[in-house]
């Protein structure tokens, strides 16, 4: 059996299990896959819903991904090249990776108030250490033989970064981006549930309050769809670049 066929079989089994469970519990606890997919489809084709909620969440996630990844990348570069920066940033890294998400959300609400800024901050701040660590470690583990070649041939620093470091960091960077995309969405949704007046997280909160399970599960499906889309794009773009 090919990987694609196995993947389809796995998805079908998961939906089957979901359907089986939904028949055995109250509809106030779990919506059936048919109802959830129907609700997700309605959300997708409803232009006003898309602009007000889906687009708002996507924008926040993309913004937090961009801010978090870029900050993590440049801090990681600095820490990889200069051990003093690594040592200096280590306490901050420990604080960010150790703090529970819900505590960070409460702090973000106090600092930024309710709305987009808080959601984007929360999404970005937890991405930074993941990308930062991957980049810093990648730089430190970079194959010294290539760097010696670059030193003998007097390659400029920018060329070394582009031709040696970046391709060596590529695989780790691609994996960490895939990982942080899911995390970013989780955190942005959590922030929206706690303190926003639009976005998929806001819809999730309202659906839960109204016990509207199809909409709640439909929102979850939309979130999954988005994470898969971004993951596929990252894999396609970065892996094509890495493997030529």
């Amino acid at each position: 059996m090919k990987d694609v066929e196995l993947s389809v079989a796995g998805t079908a089994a998961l939906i089957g299990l979901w359907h089986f469970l939904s028949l055995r519990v109250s509809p106030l606890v779990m919506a059936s896959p048919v109802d959830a997919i129907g609700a997700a489809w309605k959300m997708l084709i409803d232009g006003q819903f898309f602009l007000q909620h889906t687009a708002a969440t996507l924008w926040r996630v993309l913004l937090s991904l961009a801010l978090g990844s870029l900050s993590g990348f440049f801090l990681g570069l600095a820490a990889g090249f200069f051990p003093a920066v690594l040592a200096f940033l280590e306490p901050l890294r420990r604080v960010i990776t150790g703090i529970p998400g819900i505590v960070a959300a409460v702090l973000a609400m106090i600092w930024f108030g309710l709305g987009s800024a808080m959601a984007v901050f929360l999404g970005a701040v937890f991405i930074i250490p993941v990308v930062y660590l991957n980049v810093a470690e990648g730089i430190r583990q970079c194959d010294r033989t290539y760097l010696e070649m670059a030193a003998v041939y007097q390659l400029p620093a920018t060329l070394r970064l582009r031709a040696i470091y970046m391709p060596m960091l590529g695989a780790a960077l691609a994996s960490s981006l895939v990982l942080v995309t899911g995390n970013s969405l989780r955190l942005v949704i959590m922030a929206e549930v706690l303190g926003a007046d639009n976005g998929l997280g806001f819809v999730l909160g309202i659906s839960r309050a109204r016990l509207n399970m199809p909409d709640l599960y439909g929102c979850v499906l939309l979130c999954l769809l988005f994470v898969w889309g971004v993951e596929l794009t990252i894999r396609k773009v970065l892996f094509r670049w890495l493997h030529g």
Partner: protein
Amino acid sequence: MADPALTISDLCLSFGGHRLFNGFKLVLETGEVFGLTGKSGSGKTTLLRIIAGLETGYRGRVISTFRRTAYVFQDTRLLPWLSAIENVALPLIGRMSKTAARERAREGLRQVQLETFADYRPARLSGGMAQRVGIARALACRPDLLLLDEPFSALDDKLRRHLTALIRCQIRENGISGLLVSHHPADLESLTDRTISI
């Protein structure tokens, strides 16, 4: 006699309790090619690395007036994610336009008879081919000092003769100085002005 372009004096270096150099001296004149031979672990590659500025922790003086060094590494050190032509053009980027760099790299590959493999990545090349790409990269950057560490070890006799002739021609035409590490007496004889065993 030309001025010394490289002077090494009182070089002392030990590795793990083993003394590699103890007051070693070497003078290399402009345009001169020097051969180094000797048993494995005697410090031939280490000496090339010291001259290339890759080795520290030694005592003594290394005074070099060379501005551009090229090094044909024993393990080629081609970047696996670049094609053969991109590897050869790499040291030229920033020194000339991209088109000119690629053109010179193609010419370098033609000289080592690998023009048809220009777009191949190192993983698809044999050991001998990769070694020739390394030689093309070194010659394409028009160095004034050429360091060659067993550059023909993976090549058959015919290619070895061709590349020896090519390097000798480049050295004479461009006044390049060189250091060749080899265990092959014929290579040392045809390329170098004098040879020492260390």
